[in-house]
């Protein structure tokens, strides 16, 4: 039986008066990849942006319900958002290397800008993170070049390395391949396979084949509700809800 990592209970979310998520109960299991699929605007990004409380940084955004990470409710006032984000890393849709920083500094940013302590093991951490992100061999000679000088696919792996450097427990991937070409996409999917040995991964994708390829569990969202959640093979071969079937067979969305 897989070990529970995150559990959401009656999670609701709003932008101003518009409710975008309705009573979501979902489980995320440790060292597994959980994919969230659904048509644009179904609330899947908003959903995972609650896992590291990025949702609440947007003006007019609010949420209620519970998200239990390792037994603790992350909406609890005592759980500082900065601490939470050290535990739950995130990679966004568009690669976002920091433009003023080198490749090295981009990876080190989460450590250097977090505390003043001397970082004796920084070189080690940067190399380890870049290796984990399958980027080390490509950038080992250009560590002092600007992060922006890399290709789009490399930039995205740089962002993954940057997220890994702070050693989170969970990694959120918000459509990480939607701005990339098929070869870069394949590399990142391979990478996700590797990373789940050490991390718990939640990813949003609107590419169903991608979910089928990389995810152990898949949730289908529609209009802010979770229609179905199950083992990926079950969702794609024998969904229990008619709407899921319609979506994955391409009848809408």
């Amino acid at each position, binding site marked *: 039986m897989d070990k529970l990592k995150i559990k959401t209970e009656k999670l609701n979310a709003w932008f101003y008066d518009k409710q975008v998520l309705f009573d979501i109960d979902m489980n995320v299991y440790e060292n597994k990849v959980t994919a969230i699929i659904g048509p644009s605007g179904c609330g899947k990004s908003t959903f995972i942006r609650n896992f590291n409380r990025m949702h609440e940084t947007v003006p007019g955004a609010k949420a209620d319900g519970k998200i239990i990470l390792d037994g603790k409710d992350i909406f609890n006032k005592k759980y500082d958002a900065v601490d939470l984000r050290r535990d739950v890393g*995130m990679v966004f849709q*568009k690669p*976002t290397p*920091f433009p*003023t920083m080198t490749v090295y500094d981009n990876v080190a*940013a989460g450590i250097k*800008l977090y505390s003043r302590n001397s970082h004796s093991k920084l070189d080690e951490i940067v190399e380890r993170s870049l290796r984990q992100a399958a980027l080390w061999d490509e950038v080992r000679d250009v560590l002092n070049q600007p992060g*922006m000088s890399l290709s789009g696919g490399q930039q995205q792996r740089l962002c993954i390395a940057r997220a890994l450097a702070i050693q989170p427990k969970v990694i959120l991937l918000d459509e990480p391949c939607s701005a990339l070409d098929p070869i870069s996409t394949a590399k990142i999917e391979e990478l996700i396979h590797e990373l789940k040995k050490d991390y718990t991964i939640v990813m949003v994708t609107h590419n169903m084949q991608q979910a089928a390829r990389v995810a152990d569990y898949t949730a289908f969202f529609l209009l802010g509700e979770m229609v179905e959640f199950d083992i990926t093979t079950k969702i794609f071969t024998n969904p229990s809800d008619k709407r899921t079937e319609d979506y994955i067979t391409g009848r809408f969305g």
Partner: protein
Amino acid sequence: MENNTQIQSKVRRIKEQIFLIAVFLCAVIAVIPLFSVIGYVFVKGIGAIDFNFFTQLPAPVGETGGGMGNAVVGTFILVVLSCLLGLPIGIFGGIWLAQFGGGKRGFMIRYAADVLSSIPSIVIGIFAYVLIVTTMKRFSAIAGGFALGIIMIPTVTRTTEEMIKMIPRSLYEAGLALGIPEWRVTLSIVFRTAWNGVFTGIMLSVSRIMGETAPLLFTAFNSMYWNFSIDQPMSSMTVQIYNYAISPFAEWHAKAWAGSLTLVALVLGITLLVRKFSKRVRYG
């Protein structure tokens, strides 16, 4: 019929030509003052500029030679003083407006900054006079720097705000998502990325206050001697030019032209350098 349309199209083309010529002439007329000022100042001023002009004190009436070295230094000291006041307030104010100034308070502060930037500089000079000169009971570089610093605040605030707003929110979110505290994300990632643009704004603002005369007349006043203490009256190029220009002596008039040329060269130099180095950065 055919003849008629031909005439019409000919008339239309002539109108078009007249319009183009008129617009072009206006554009030419618009730049004539710039080039004639620069040209005239150059011709009149270049003769009186030599090495001594930048190193010596003003000579008394009747004596030849002398320069306005003290005024050149004074202007730089005044600029440094005004930056000490204007930059921290302007930059932090701009950061606040960009990051947190969405609401009513932001609107009011933004509005106040815009009003402040349209207040005539002599009025700000009077303000500095009342606040500092009458308190200290003497003219001083501090008072002059204070007046110039206040003039800097609104321009620096608004450029900082505009430049930060050009940085995409995704960069701010990427920083937060790494568990970096918000103030650190704002300074080390967002502001750092906007810095090139902010620097351009600062330099343009500096070149503007370098040319201010009115707010210095009764704050920094003037001095005929070397002075490096900021609680004493201090000479500046603009006020020195003014004093020389209204004097009845031909010698001094020549010095006023030379001072003008130096000032124009400095301001023009800063503006051109800034334009050259402030190439747009792509933010990805």
